[in-house]
C-alpha cells in the first residue's frame, strides 16, 4: 500500500468590501473577513482535498487530506501520479497599490460611485446600477517539499450597467474595469466616461435592428476577439481537459491549427486582473505561447499535467480554499500589423461585432457560442446600421483558420472565469481581427 508522498497547503487571509448602488440609492455596503486553508495530499495516484476555516489547525488539515488520499487509494488504487519538479518561486515585480483603498473613507467611495452612476443616466435610460469592490488577500503556500512562500495583493474594480426602455423593449449597456491595483484605478480609467458609454449603448440598442442570421465574413473588436481567445482556444489548451479527452486540441502540438497570423499567449506576469506571482501549487508564474504563428505550441499546465505531457507548470489556480485546477490568467491574441480600415476594405460586405455578453464552449467538440453586445452591418466597406442580439457560433478550428487579418490595437478586458464550479479573476484581449466566414445568429 502507498504512503502519502506529497502534501501542500494554501493559507489565505482576505478582507473584501463591496458597495452596490441602484438607481442612486445605496443597496448594499458589505464587508467580509475570511481566513482558512485548503490542504491536499497525494497518495499513490489518489488525491485528497480538505478545507478548514477560521482559526484552523494546520496539522489537522494536512492529516485529514492525507487520510482522504490514503483511503481513496486503498479503495481505488491506480497508477502513481508524479509531479513535475519545481524550484522555489522568486517573487519580484509584484504590483502594489499606490492608493490603498483601505485608506479611502467609505463616504468618498460612495460619492464616487454615485457620480459614476449619474453619468450613465440620460434620456431613454430608465434604470442604472453600479458596483464597487475592493479586496486585499494574503496567500501563504507551504509544501512537503519545503517550499514556503507568500504574497499580498490588492484588487480594486467597478462595474456600471444602464437599462434603456421604450415601448416594452429593454436594452442594456455595461462597462467595467477591475485591476490588481488600488484606488488609483480611477486615475487610470475614466470611470465617468465609461459610465456615459454604458448609458449610450443601452439607448442606441433600442433603435437597433434585429440581426438576420447566416454565414458571413465578420470583424471582431478586441473585447469579443479576446473572449474567443479565452473561451474557444484557452480552455481547450488546458492540459487537464486535454488529458481527460475533452479537448479538440489533444494530440495536435506542433500542428498548424490556425492562420499563420494568429499568436495566442497566456501571461500571468502581466499586471492585469489575472496576475499572480506564483500559482496555487507554489509554482512561479511564467508566460506561455499557446499558438505561435498558427502552430499549436503549448498547453497550460499544472505540475501533474506537465509531468505527463511535458511542459511548464504554473497555471494551476484555485478560488479560495478550493482545489487547484488548470486555468488561464491573462490571455490574448497578440498584435498583428493590419488596421481596421484595411479590414473593412477586405470584407466589403459582412458584420462588425463588438463587446461581449459572455459565451460558452464545448472544448471536446470544439464548438462555441458567444453573444456580442452590438453588431453593425458592413456594406461596401463601410460600417452602417446597428444590430442587436447578435451571436456568433461555430467550430474553434474553423474560425482560427478563417482569420485573414490581425490588427495592431491589442486591448485587455478584465473579468472572471468559471471552471469546475470556481471563479478566478482573469483578463483577456486581442486586437481587431477579421474572419472570412462565421455563423452569425439572430432572432
Amino acid at each position, binding site marked *: 500500500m502507498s504512503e502519502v508522498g506529497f502534501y501542500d497547503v494554501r493559507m489565505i487571509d482576505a478582507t473584501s468590501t463591496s458597495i452596490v448602488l*441602484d438607481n442612486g*440609492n*445605496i443597496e448594499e455596503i*458589505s*464587508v*467580509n*473577513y*475570511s*481566513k*482558512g486553508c485548503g490542504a491536499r495530499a497525494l497518495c499513490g*495516484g*489518489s*488525491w485528497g*482535498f*480538505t*478545507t478548514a*476555516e*477560521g*482559526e484552523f489547525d494546520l496539522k489537522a488539515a494536512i492529516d*485529514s487530506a492525507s487520510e*482522504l*488520499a490514503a483511503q*481513496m487509494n486503498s*479503495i*481505488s488504487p491506480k497508477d502513481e501520479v508524479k509531479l513535475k519538479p519545481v524550484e522555489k518561486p522568486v517573487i519580484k515585480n509584484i504590483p502594489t497599490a499606490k492608493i490603498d483603498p483601505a485608506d479611502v473613507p*467609505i*463616504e468618498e467611495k*460612495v460619492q464616487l460611485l454615485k457620480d459614476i452612476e449619474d453619468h450613465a443616466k440620460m434620456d431613454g435610460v430608465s*434604470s442604472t*446600477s453600479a458596483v464597487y469592490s475592493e479586496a486585499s488577500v494574503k496567500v501563504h503556500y507551504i509544501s512537503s517539499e519545503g517550499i514556503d512562500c507568500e504574497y499580498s495583493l490588492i484588487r480594486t474594480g467597478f462595474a456600471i450597467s444602464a*437599462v434603456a426602455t421604450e415601448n416594452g423593449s*429593454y*436594452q*442594456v449597456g455595461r462597462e467595467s474595469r477591475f485591476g490588481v491595483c488600488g484606488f488609483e484605478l480611477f486615475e487610470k480609467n475614466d470611470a465617468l466616461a465609461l459610465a456615459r458609454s454604458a448609458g449610450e449603448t443601452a439607448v442606441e440598442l433600442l433603435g437597433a435592428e434585429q440581426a438576420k*442570421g*447566416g454565414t458571413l465574413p465578420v470583424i471582431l473588436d478586441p473585447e469579443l476577439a479576446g473572449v474567443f481567445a479565452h473561451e474557444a482556444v484557452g480552455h481547450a489548451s488546458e492540459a487537464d481537459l486535454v*488529458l*481527460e*479527452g*475533452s479537448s479538440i486540441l489533444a494530440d495536435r502540438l506542433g500542428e498548424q491549427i490556425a492562420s499563420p497570423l494568429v499568436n495566442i499567449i497566456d501571461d500571468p506576469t502581466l499586471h492585469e486582473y489575472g496576475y499572480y506571482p506564483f500559482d496555487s501549487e507554489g509554482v512561479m508564474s511564467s508566460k506561455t505561447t499557446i499558438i505561435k504563428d498558427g502552430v499549436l505550441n503549448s498547453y497550460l499546465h499544472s505540475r501533474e499535467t506537465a509531468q505527463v505531457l511535458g511542459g511548464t507548470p504554473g497555471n494551476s489556480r484555485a478560488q479560495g*480554499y478550493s*482545489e487547484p485546477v488548470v486555468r488561464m490568467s491573462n490571455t490574448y491574441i497578440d498584435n498583428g500589423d493590419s488596421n481596421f480600415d484595411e479590414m473593412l476594405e477586405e470584407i466589403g460586405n459582412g458584420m462588425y461585432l463588438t463587446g461581449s*455578453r459572455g*459565451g*460558452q464552449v*464545448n472544448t*471536446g*467538440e470544439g*464548438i*462555441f*457560442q*458567444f*453573444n456580442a453586445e452590438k453588431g453593425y452591418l458592413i456594406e461596401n466597406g463601410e460600417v452602417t446600421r446597428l444590430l442587436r*442580439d447578435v*451571436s456568433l*457560433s*461555430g*467550430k474553434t478550428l474553423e474560425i482560427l483558420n478563417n482569420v485573414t487579418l490581425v490588427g495592431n490595437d491589442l486591448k485587455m478586458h478584465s473579468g472572471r472565469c468559471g471552471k469546475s464550479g470556481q471563479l478566478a479573476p482573469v483578463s483577456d484581449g486581442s486586437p481587431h481581427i477579421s474572419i472570412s466566414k462565421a*455563423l452569425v445568429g439572430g*432572432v
Partner: protein
Amino acid sequence: MFEHAQKAIELAEKLGADEAEVYISYNHSISADIRKTIIESAKENVSQGIGIRSIINGAVGFASTNNVSRIEDIVNISVSSAKVRDSDPEWTSLPSNAKYPEVSGTYDKRISEIGLDDCIGLTGKMIEGALSVPDVNTTSGSFSTSCNKHLIMNTNGVEIVDEGTGVSGFVDVITTKGDISTAYDFEVSRSLDIDVFGIGASASSLAIRSQNGISIEPKKTNVILHPFAFSDIFENTFEPSIDADNMQKERSSLIGKKGETIATPDLNIIDDGLLEGGIDTSISDEEGTPSQRTPIIENGIFKSFLYDNYTAGKDNTSSTGNGMRHSYVSTPSVGPRNLLVEYPSSDVIADTDEGVFINTVIGAHTANAISGDFSVEARNAFTIKDGQLDKPIKSLMLSGNIFEMLNKITGAGSDVRKVGGTVVPSLRIAEMSIVG
C-alpha cells in the same frame, strides 16, 4: 459558531442598531471526482460562516466572516456601515416570528452517515453505467453528498434552525470511435435515491446517438426542449422578470401585466417552497419568512411576482417567502424556490409530425434577461419525423423570446425532472426559429 448568535445580536443592539439579524450556515460535504475513467480524488469540506445585518433608521449595514474570533469586528462594521447610509424610508422591518409549516423529504439520515467509501462505490457505479455503452469514455464527473444546517435569528423574535441533506451525481462523456460527440447527464436529490448507473448509461447512450450529425436548413418549426434545455433558458430569461426587485427597478417585461394572459391557458407556473423533497424546500426562506406556495402563472394568467421582505414592504404586500441568499456572505435578495412548470402531458414526441428535439443548450446565460430574447447553441439535438426522433443534428442555433414561447407551448411530456429548483417536463413549442 451557532452559540455566538445571541451575543452578536445583543452587541449590535448595544452599538445602536434598531434591528439586527444573524444568519449562520454550516455545510459538510464529501465528494469523489472522476477524471477520465478513474476516480481520482476525494474531497471533504466543512465550511461555516456568519453574516450580520444591522439596521438603523431603515439603513442596512452588513458584514460577514468565517472566523469566530472576528465576530465582534463584523458586528461593529455592520453597525458603522448602517450609519454611513441615508435612512431608507421604504424599509419596514425584518421578518417577525411566525407559525412555520412542516416540510418533508429534505433530510435523509443515510446521507448524514455516508462515508467516503460509499461515495467512491456510487461514483464507480456511475462510471460503470457510462462504460456499459460501447465506445464511450467518461471524461469528468462527480458524486457528492452534503449536510447543511442554518440558523436565522433576529430582534423580532425569529429563531429558526433548519437542517437538510442533498446528493448530486453528474458525468460528462465522449465517444471514442468515429465521429466525436459529447453528452452529459446529472441528477440532484435531497435523499439518497438517485440512479447513479442510469446517469452514466443515459449520458453515454445520448453521446452515441448524437454521432454523425446532419446539417439542416434554417426554418421555423416545432421544437421540443428537454427539461435541461428548457430550464437553462427559463432560468436566464423568465426567472429575472418575476423578481419583484427587478420589477420595482423597471427591469422586467412583466411590469403592469398582473391579471393579464401572458401564456397559453393550459400553462401553470408555481413557486413552491414546500414541495416534498424539493431542492429549494425549507420551512422558511433565508430571512425567516415562512415558506409558501405562490402561483405565478395560473391558466395562462400572470398572478404574482416573487417578493422578499424588503421588496414586499415597498409594495405594501407580504413576502412570498423568497428572501434567498447565495451564502452567508451576502444579504438576502429575491430568489425563486422550487419553480414548477406544469402543462398537460401526452406522448409528446409521438404527437409531433415534424420538428426538432433539443437535449441541452450552451450560452443561455448570454440572453437578454429583461426582454427575454435569447440565441443559444443546441447540443445533442435530433430531427423529429412522423412522431419519432430521426437523425442527430450537427450544429444548430435556436433563437427566440421566452414570452413569445409561453404562448406557443403546444405539448408536454410526462418526463418531469428536477433540474435544480426548476421542476419541468419536456415542452413542445411551435414555430421556433432555428439556424443550422
